[in-house]
């Protein structure tokens, strides 16, 4: 679980959030980014980013950070 791997994921989430930025309010974008990650990312990638993004400043933009929070919720809902 290397730092460079985490950084790759962080820049990807930031990139996705930026490209979706015109889709609506920050909340809406964050929600769509979370859905996108849920739909296209493999579990180890989702696990790594959700574990590290909670609490830590790992370089996510504000919307991306919000998206990861939403992804955590999606994960929890699935686990429940």
């Amino acid at each position: 679980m290397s730092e460079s791997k985490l950084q790759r994921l962080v820049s990807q989430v930031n990139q996705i959030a930026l490209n979706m930025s015109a889709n609506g309010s920050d909340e809406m974008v964050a929600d769509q980014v979370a859905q996108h990650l849920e739909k296209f990312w493999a579990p180890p990638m989702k696990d790594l980013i959700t574990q590290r993004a909670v609490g830590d400043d790992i370089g996510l933009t504000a919307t991306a950070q919000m998206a990861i929070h939403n992804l955590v919720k999606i994960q929890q809902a699935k686990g429940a």
Partner: protein
Amino acid sequence: MLEFYEPQADYGTPKSASTAMVTLSIDGVNVTVPEGTSVMRAAAESGVKIPRLCATDQLKSFGSCRVCLVEIEGRRGFPASCTTNVEAGMEVRTQSDEIGKLRRNVMELYISDHPLDCLTCPTNGDCELQDTAGELGLRSVRYGFEGENHLVAEKDESNPYFTFDPSKCIVCSRCVRACEEVQGTFALTIDGRGFESKVSASQAEDFMDSECVSCGACVNACPTATLTEKSIIEAGKPEHSVTTTCAYCGVGCSFKAEMKGSQVVRMTPYKDGKANEGHACVKGRFAFGYATHKDRITLPMIRDSIDDPWREVSWDEAVTYTAKRFKDIQAQYGRTSIGAISSSRCTNEEVYLVQKMVRAGFGNNNVDTCARVCHSPTGFGLKTTLGESAGTQTFASVAEADVVIVMGANPTEAHPVFGSRLKRRLREGAKLIVIDPRKIELVSSPHITADYHLPVRPGTNVTILNALAHVVVNEGLEARDYIHERCDVAEFEKWRAFIGDERHAPENTETITGVAAADLRAAARLYATGGNGAIFYGLGVTEHSQGSTAVMGIANLAMLTGNIGRDGVGVNPLRGQNNVQGSCDMGSFPHELPGYRHISDTATRQLFEGEWGVTLDSEPGLRIPNMFDAALDGEFKGLYCQGEDIAQSDPNTQHVEAALRSIECLVVQDIFLNETAKFAHVFLPGASFLEKDGTFTNAERRISRVRKVMPPLSGKADWEGTMALANALGCKMDYSHPSEIMDEIARLTPTFTGVSYDRLEQLGSIQWPCNDSTPEGTPIMHVEEFVRGKGFFAMTEYVATTERANRKFPLLLTTGRILSQYNVGAQTRRTDNSEWHGEDLLEIHPHDAEERGINHDDWVGINSRVGDTVLRASVTDRVKPGVVYTTFHHPVSGANVITTDNSDWATNCPEYKVTAVQISKVTAPSSWQARQKSFDKQQQGLLKEAQH
């Protein structure tokens, strides 16, 4: 469908498209044909053959030879049947003593200037001149053979695939017209007049030095042995033929593989093939020799380490070894530590089996396909906006387009047969807008000039598309009724507010894109108001960090102007490889099952679980770049790679090579020891398209049969290899023929329900969706409504790539393909096509070259942020200042040593089309090239050891 060899039926003149019918009498029999049909064709359709020399149904009638004379009641003289159209009540006589005499007279003149070496002529028995002389009962030539003639004219053998022997030419001009009408190259002319007239390539040059692109249309059209395939000269006339589909590009041309025993002696484009209608390009038509090239590997091989020599083994040993290694890896590193990559070069049935083996046998969803690196943004973008990941119209319907946009595609090089179709329509007067950083051939070629060429700066496609849409919206040119009826209006309003913003105005985007505002405005107006608008796009759109956004921008533009859902309009991704569409349809992406259904969808999963008897993982698997990253992180250890050369084709070669080196069991199934196989531990010999049954799906969703014409050299077709491995892994498969695999696909995939080999046999080819509501397939999509219901205008925010030019890397490199070579070149480099393109060149503008003291043909170093390589320079104004360009067909070029890890935000499709570089004059290869050379030498040595 094996048939004894017969030349394809020729009705003399093209079919009329009219729906009005006309009845006439031919030799006393009533015949009903469409209005506009020639008398010659009407006769042929009713089984009466009128002799002909200058006419063929691939070309407009010309009326020069006068062999086809007939009598028509009430008309004076003897009209030529090829140039006379039918009329109601017409009474035609095709035979009489007088007609026979006149025809024989003409024939005598031809034959008096023709060598009488029929017995030793390569086309003896397959020659229209010979047949016609026979039909006319010509028994002597009164004029003698001693007069002035052309019998000693010199042969031109410069083209590697066909010869031109002017001594046999009857100057019927079929070749000249084929080059003009069918191919659109205008390489041939008839020079001189009367007796002096002769066929000449360009300015009386050899074919090889002329503008000829070796499509073979003239060779097909020639009624004599003047233009003849060298393969026929060497091997003789074919004995039987099998109809199959080209395995090169996404046009999907249909061919008759003409055979002698199990040897292909000629590939003749099939007239009934709906994608090509009898035309072909130099790849499909001539470049088939790779299939029997000496480099083919036909025995499975294994080794423990990539520094060990290969060991040839039986199929059983190879698959048992692989299965054990994969199982051991999973036991040690976990279920998700292995995966597979399939190829768009393989059949639908084969890629379906690979994803099945991964999902059901490996127990994970780590399967991806090479479409990841080409058209994955098309899948995402078109699904989001229109609801289906596919092109919307047929190639043939370009004949009804009035305005065509070609964006980031180069059809005359990469999709040549479609390129010829498009050129034909443009010559008829359709308008053309080219959006491309380079002056591609369509910008200006014989009889074609693009109305607008928007030379976009690489990386700014989205800005261009937004600006085009802005003009349409702000000038009130949108198709309001269409949008209100067909699209999600609330989303449209949101999008309209976004796109109407002044930042998208062409005057404000000019500095970003480098495209003049006036040209952009004019192009937008033309597309919005010029009638039927069709967009064709390629990898110049998708292979960007905003590739998915650009695809959505294209779909938005088409919906905005009402240009989707009928003939002559649409949004069409030109797929690079033969089966990109099919491999995507077959569930080759890690997140979806066949038919583009997400793996998390319980009902779909249950359907497959029921059929396959396993429980499926509901989470998406790793994409190709994720696999590489995971390999470098030590989490991904086993990879099965079928027919895809990731080491050469994926970006940032050094990163890919490092990833491949860290894989413990790399299995490559291919026909040659490709670049990836040099890092492999197991080599499973692949089968070429000539050695297997299956189907390919072309860029217009057309499913066509691939038919086995020779037994697989390795004893197994690729699907049989996969099946053996799956069984060794405990994932039971027992198909006895690919048709059974297609039956399974049809059972599980709503868009394929009606597809079967029987149905394909009946219909020739089928465009999916094909099910109960569309039993004969769907040529045009989204006719009444969009697949997703209402069309969705997606927001297309432009986010510039992080790959920017600066002082250190001031130029932008973009990449593309050339006509004679195909992708990584593994096939075409092993044919005479290399005579046209023996090496990749770096195109650089004279201004940039001069600044750096670079001359044409100099060796130049290309440095990017990730690597460097060396190529020879071609100084040309085809590229604009600030942009350089190369192809990527030769491994030693290392084009991907310089491309970066940047990728599309939505799909991770690599950003091949934008790399900031510096160019400088050098004298030696790059260090990577030196390493590549010695690694190649080592691996070839290890291969030789196995083969001793």
